[in-house]
């Protein structure tokens, strides 16, 4: 009896010391810009961390998109330290390679979410293949699917225009390239222009107005993110052409969903930012605790809102809120 008791106590002691030794894991999240999508990734990551008994610290949200703004914030985050795993949204697929490599060399494993380094292929050895995984939407596929659906909306013929944000962010350039690829399949559709609004909605609106002026017979617009789509639909709405010019947009913010219901926008692609955040923490946790092999690409997929399905109960969870 006594021996059993000692054994149990010993086992308890070992277990307890294990518990102590295994300190609470901390994840760090470095967003790319202040916007609803990045906030949703944080929410997903925070929820998953809580569920796993880990904690999450968050770098300051950059107020504008670009390596020159993000890198100092990232370095401050690393200087503060105290985390075991980094979840980062690189704002440039080239300029972030060196700073992130330096952090990686300090023994901090990382995944990139939403955007990637280089061409995003971490499976082959290269100077940018050090992140464990890219977790995010397949933007090229998304842009392609948007293109197909927009073509259908305008009857596979006519002029279309694209308003996007930055020429050097892998996420939006992927959407652009996918969209253009789809448009190539429709010989009667002409892409009349691509504008870069640098994430300023007013600029997107101004650019769209000018394009409507140049091409009064424009049939469709693809706004590649929240600010692009909002600016585009406002320009179209002001010109009194809602419904006449079909608008495809990216990201299911409450405003775009409302615009879809109001008939100002015709198609909304929803990414899964919450799930991206969850997956990033989940895989990081598995890697740190079980030495699990993380797949080089984790693609959560997307969902298309149309006026037909926007009110369906099953669609509501895809809205960013």
């Amino acid at each position, binding site marked *: 009896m006594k021996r059993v008791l000692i054994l149990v106590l010993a086992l308890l002691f070992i277990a307890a010391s294990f518990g102590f030794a295994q300190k609470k894991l901390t994840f760090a999240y470095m967003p790319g810009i202040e916007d609803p999508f*990045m906030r949703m990734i944080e929410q997903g990551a925070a929820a998953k961390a809580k569920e796993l008994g880990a904690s999450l610290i968050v770098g300051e949200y950059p107020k504008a998109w670009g390596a020159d703004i993000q890198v100092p914030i990232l370095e401050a985050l690393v200087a503060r330290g105290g985390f075991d795993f980094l979840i980062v949204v690189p704002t440039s697929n080239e300029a972030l390679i060196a700073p992130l490599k330096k952090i990686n060399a300090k023994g901090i494993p990382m995944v990139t979410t939403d955007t990637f380094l280089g061409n995003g292929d971490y499976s082959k050895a290269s100077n940018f293949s050090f992140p464990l995984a890219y977790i995010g939407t397949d933007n090229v596929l998304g842009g392609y699917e948007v293109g197909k659906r927009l073509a259908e909306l305008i009857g596979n013929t006519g002029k279309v225009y694209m308003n996007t944000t930055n020429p050097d962010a892998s996420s939006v350039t992927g959407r652009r390239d996918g969209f253009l690829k789809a448009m190539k399949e429709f010989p009667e559709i002409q892409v009349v222009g691509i*504008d870069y609004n640098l994430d*300023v909605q007013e600029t997107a609106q101004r650019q769209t107005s000018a394009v409507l*002026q*140049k091409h*009064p017979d424009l049939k469709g617009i693809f706004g590649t993110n929240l600010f692009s789509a909002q600016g585009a639909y406002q320009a179209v709405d002001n010109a009194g052409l809602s419904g006449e010019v079909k608008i495809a947009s990216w990201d299911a913010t*409450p405003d775009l969903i409302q615009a879809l219901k109001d008939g100002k926008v015709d198609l909304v692609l929803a990414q899964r930012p919450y799930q991206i955040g969850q997956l990033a923490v989940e895989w990081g946790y598995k890697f740190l605790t079980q030495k699990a092999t993380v797949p080089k690409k984790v693609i959560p997929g997307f969902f298309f809102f149309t006026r037909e399905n926007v009110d369906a109960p099953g669609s509501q969870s895809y809205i960013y809120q």
Partner: protein
Amino acid sequence: MGGMGNRGAAAKVLTFLGERWAALFLLLLLLGFGFLERNFFTFKNFSNILYYATTYALLAAGETFVIITGGIDLSVGFVMGFTGVSSAIVMRDMYAAGRPEAACLLVGAAVGLALGLIPGLINGLLVARLRVPPFIATLGTYGVANGMALYLSNGFPITFLPPRVQKIGNSFLAYLLPDKGFTFLHRPEGLKSKELRSLIGIVPVTVLVTAAVLLVFAFILKRTRFGQHLYAIGGSKDAAIRAGINVPSHLVRTYVLSSMLAAVAGVLYVFRSGIGNFTTMSASYELFAVAAVVIGGASLMGGKGGLGGTLIGILILMTLENGLNIAGIPAFYRYIATGVILIAAVVIDQFTPERKAGGA
């Protein structure tokens, strides 16, 4: 003797051209783009240019006052975002609480305008009483206003405002349907697709509001003693003090005016877009405002400038962007063009002979 006279005449011509080069350049732009692009020289397009100029015109008007005193206000763009977000939050919450739309709009606009006084007051007190250089003082408020806007909005645009907001903000004084006639203040209903595309709105309401505000401020600058004192302060602060002008009080009021105009721009932006959006840093509103003021003939040293010139400066920047856009010039060239014109403005100003005191 004759040589002297010729040189005098040449200087006069140079002065004449140098002082009006901005207006001439604007004219040249309009004609040039009109010649190049059939779709540029239309009523609808000019209406668009004016519509998009409103935000910048209001910000640059305030900036003109500040620059005349020899200062600078870098906070205008973010004060605009801060007041816009605040005003939108009030509208949204009141509307959600079931208040009548008119009340939501009025109270929301009033709150936005009132909040606009605070950053201006802080700027003014810092500059006038604590002798903080305007560049630093307003750079500080720039950060604070930006942070407040992001804190209030949590990084999300403020949505679900009363639907009438956007309707009012995007209405026109009149609508013209070619061959069919006019309607006033509201869009004719039940139009077919072809008619929709040819409908012309005449004078956006936001342009009217902006014009009214600018007229009042032009009057203040040109016709009141306060306005004249600002030129004196910018010309020489010491001389102004010796002349008995209460310089600190004038400076405080100037920064408050600038901030107030930014708040007007913020509230108008809510009406135009139907959402409350924080200002993204890449918008660089303050830089465009300063550029327009300088292109319009003001000097960053103070003592010089006017709202007419500033308005021309804004129209040059807007026409240039619109024209290059319609001409299909890729976006990157447009930034270059803006930069080149800004530098040209200052160079031309340097080489324009000064008018003699008491001259025309």
